[in-house]
């Protein structure tokens, strides 16, 4: 075989080469390095002396870490739950042969084009305790109305939920709507002939048929939730105090402003573990249900 032919045979591998090497080094290699760093005493400078699980002990003794985890739990559950409820509701409403559907859809979905920093900035202003929505209510005569969640350390994490749901629910709507459009009309018509009411049809037939859409929506939203960083920074900066801290902020501050590389790495590894713990069972269930459908 000529050299030219030999070369041709390997073109696909050569084209993929740079990407695969980059992935091996910058994804797998770096995860390994971070993992190793989390097992050392590293502070300001990386220190490669092995120290076992000390950093993880420190991490789980750290009250701020627990606050972050609790907040992630609250935010994650509410953010995913509300986004799905609103998104599905809107998708079903829009699926009723609506005039101006395209226009409405465009309005519901535009927040997804914004950065979380912009969303956070806008909502920080809307929720401003003295000049924002609270003042609107006062101007309209409801003088006892108070809405100080942004500066109330018990409630600050819920402002993140409000802004996050605002940004993502339209996107969830788009996914569900695409799912609804994919359902066979004949099944619905048959059920109608049998006398089933519209809510029953949705509840018993349509929603169960959208199982795969639910999986991908939960997958994407939990991914967004676990990574959430910019929205919290722009809205509350983790405050008041550190009442609205999330793991991503914890990781950033300990790694880059407090010079605790070991502890920062340990928190990063815990974030990875959280994503794996959510995604792996979800994907397993999804492939299993996909097989069962066949």
């Amino acid at each position, binding site marked *: 075989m000529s050299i030219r032919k030999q070369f041709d045979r390997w*073109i*696909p*591998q050569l*084209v*993929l080469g740079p*990407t*695969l090497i*980059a*992935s091996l080094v*910058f994804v797998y290699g*770096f*995860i390994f390095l971070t993992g190793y*760093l989390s097992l050392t005493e590293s502070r300001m400078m990386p220190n490669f002396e092995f120290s076992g699980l000390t950093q993880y002990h420190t991490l789980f003794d750290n009250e701020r870490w627990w606050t972050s985890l609790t907040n992630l739990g609250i935010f994650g559950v509410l953010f995913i739950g509300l986004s799905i409820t*609103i998104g599905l509701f*809107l998708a079903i*409403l829009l*699926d*009723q042969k*609506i005039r101006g559907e395209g226009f*409405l859809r465009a*309005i*519901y*979905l*535009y*927040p997804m*084009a*914004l*950065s979380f*920093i*912009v969303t956070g*900035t*806008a909502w920080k*202003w809307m929720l401003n305790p003295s*000049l924002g*929505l609270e*003042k*609107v209510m006062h101007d309209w005569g409801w003088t006892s109305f108070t809405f100080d969640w942004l500066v109330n350390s018990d409630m600050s994490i819920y402002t993140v939920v409000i802004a996050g749901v605002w940004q993502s629910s339209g*996107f969830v709507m*788009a*996914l569900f709507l695409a799912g*609804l*459009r994919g*359902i066979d009309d004949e099944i*619905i*018509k048959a059920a109608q002939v049998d006398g089933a009411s519209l809510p029953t049809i949705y509840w018993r037939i349509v929603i169960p048929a959208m199982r795969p859409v639910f999986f*991908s929506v939960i997958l*994407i939203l939990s*991914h967004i939730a676990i*990574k959430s*960083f*910019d929205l919290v920074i*722009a809205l509350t900066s983790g405050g008041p105090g550190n009442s609205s801290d999330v793991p*991503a902020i914890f*990781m950033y501050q300990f790694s*880059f402003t407090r010079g605790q*590389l070991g502890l920062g*790495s340990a928190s990063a590894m815990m*974030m*990875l573990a959280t*994503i794996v713990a959510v995604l792996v069972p979800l994907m397993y269930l999804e492939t299993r249900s996909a097989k069962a459908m066949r």
Partner: protein
Amino acid sequence: MTHTRKHQFTLGRVVLYLLLILFALYYIIPLYVTLSTSFKSLDEIRSGNLLALPQVWQFESWGKAWSSACTGVTCNGLQPFFWNSLEMVVPAVLISTFIGAFNGYVFAHWRFRGSEMLFAALLVGCFIPFQVVLLPMARLLGEFGLANTTTGLVFVHVVYGTAFTTLFFRNYYTSVPEELIKAARIDGAGFFLIFRKIVLPISGPIFVVCIIWQFTQIWNDFLFGIVFASGDSQPITVGLNNLVNTSTGVKEYNVNMAAAVIAALPTLLVYLVAGRYFVRGLTAGAVKG
């Protein structure tokens, strides 16, 4: 999905439209408030109603947000950050899209033993929280003199964006009939010729989807920007955050809101012009992502 009953002006339909309009208001009000606040004077902001239109329209806040508001120690507005973001986003989007197109083409039509497994391994890059690579990457960029440079940011965005772009193109190209490629191969056409003559001419839509997706992702990124850039290479999201948090005396909400709109404008424009493709990108990325 359709159903057979004819829709007249029933009570149900009225409620339906009312609900849809209420939700539209919920999504549109923050944008409206942001815009109207940006045109109000500070006095009007303090005395007036959040939801009211400006009584006197003023535009100074926009000029200030663009060129003279303080963002930390410097006071040049968002302008320098805007150009930084543009300088970062254009090469990063083009390079990652280009690489993704070739990768996707290989994964769809030039499979070899183990290529499916490699594809799966590559996809892991879409799922990891980037926190888990930040520290080594910061060190690496430092070693190569790329820390705090736009080049460094472009590099990072290309490295971690390629998994997504590959996924886009691979899914699109698998819908190109295998026979078409096989026939061309039998005729003696090679890898690049087939790409140029057969695959590329039908790739228009996926290029648009991929470019829009990458543009939105990279323009809106904050994490890489705040970790890997400083001072005069920071992107606009970091600039906006600095601007809002820099308080020299009075909080100028109108300037903050104008700045937020400026930061959002490029991606909003893309959404307005090519919303259809934007949605397609989101759903395509979502179905597998």
